């Protein structure tokens, strides 16, 4: 199975085994290099994907959403600033996304959350629980498919009733369903021990 975009692909490569902290630092350095030497960086980025043993199809899928935009801006830049700069800018954008995706592809969300909770530890002094910060991020990630589902089912119900494609008609039921889901999720979090400490 090829997972959805940017989701962890299990593996035992050095990139998988590298802890998230150093990996994020590495990402920062790699981004700077990729922006400075966009044409030279392509080879090493491909090599990193190979090192992590990410299937080619999945690797290409990471940058596919960009192609439309890059084509338009690329053509525009070729006309205005010449093809050399256009090639550099286009490739640095693509490489940045590829590098960021590589981190999420080789890092479990939980490991990332632990790191974030660690980094957020100084916030405790101003009364913010680091675990809460990590939980907030986890819930944000979790809510994307939840909201997509709500939107999908409300739209379906309206089409079935012949309500057409009026986006305004979606708003109220979507808000109501979202609030109800938020309520249920809150209850589940309590039941699972979030408010105990």
């Amino acid at each position: 199975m090829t997972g959805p975009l940017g989701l962890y692909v299990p593996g035992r490569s050095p990139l998988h085994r590298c802890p998230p902290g150093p990996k994020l630092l590495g990402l920062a350095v790699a981004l700077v290099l990729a922006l400075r030497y966009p044409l030279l960086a392509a080879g090493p980025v491909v090599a990193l994907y190979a090192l992590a043993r990410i299937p080619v199809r999945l690797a290409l899928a990471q940058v596919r959403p960009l192609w439309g935009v890059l084509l338009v801006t690329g053509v525009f830049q070729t006309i205005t600033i010449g093809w050399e700069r256009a090639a550099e800018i286009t490739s640095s954008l693509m490489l940045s996304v590829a590098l960021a995706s590589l981190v999420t592809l080789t890092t479990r969300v939980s490991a990332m959350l632990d790191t974030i909770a660690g980094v957020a530890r100084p916030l405790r002094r101003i009364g913010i629980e680091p675990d809460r910060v990590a939980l907030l991020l986890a819930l944000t990630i979790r809510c994307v498919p939840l909201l997509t589902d709500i939107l999908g089912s409300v739209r379906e119900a309206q089409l079935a009733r012949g309500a057409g494609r009026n986006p305004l008609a979606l708003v109220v039921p979507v808000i109501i369903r979202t609030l109800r889901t938020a309520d249920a999720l809150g209850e589940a979090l309590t039941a699972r021990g979030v408010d105990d400490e």
Partner: protein
Amino acid sequence: MIEIERVSHRFIDRTVLRDVTVTLAEHRIGVIGANGSGKSTFARLINGLVRPSEGRVSVDGLDTRRDAGKIRRKVGFVFTDPDNQIVMPTVAEDVAFSLRRAKLPREEVRRRVTAALERFGLSDHADHPAHLLSGGQKQMLALAAVLATEPTTVVCDEPTTLLDLRNTRMVGTLLHQLPQRVVLVTHQLDLLDGYDRVLVFDDGRLVVDDRPGPAVAAYRRLMT
């Protein structure tokens, strides 16, 4: 032992439970009744999600008003819609979630997650996004996540309502085999075969408290 003493509950101006008193020492307890009769509210009393407007609820000597945190560690809760209780993006992480909340050591968390996924047939999905599982698998995941915390009691509010026949049987059998005490709210009456005790609610009152056969018969009479 679950002790519910003279409990009444109101949501704003609406009385949902009326003077319920019952002591549950059995292993398998079913709860049935019409829509809106108060079953879910009753179930939520047991782990302190609902604190009664009047009366007292205790589980193994702990009062749900004073020791809600402790009680939630002992009483696992399974909701109807698994989508609402899955909080982490991937399957293994969701099982690990409650364990991390309980501040268990990392090794212990890993061991219990592996065991739970194995037991519920989810090992192959450990790193998959939880929202891509089938409905039955999601409910299995919810159960796995609850049982991994090793509760002494499991309260389930219509855990099979969204499942097909096969998954319903699977969850039903699983609940039946648990060493834990189980309180099962359901409209699927055949799931209660072999239960020790079945409570029937009607308009907020506990009206029948009997073995499954007579209790279900009384419920059928109520519904005609």
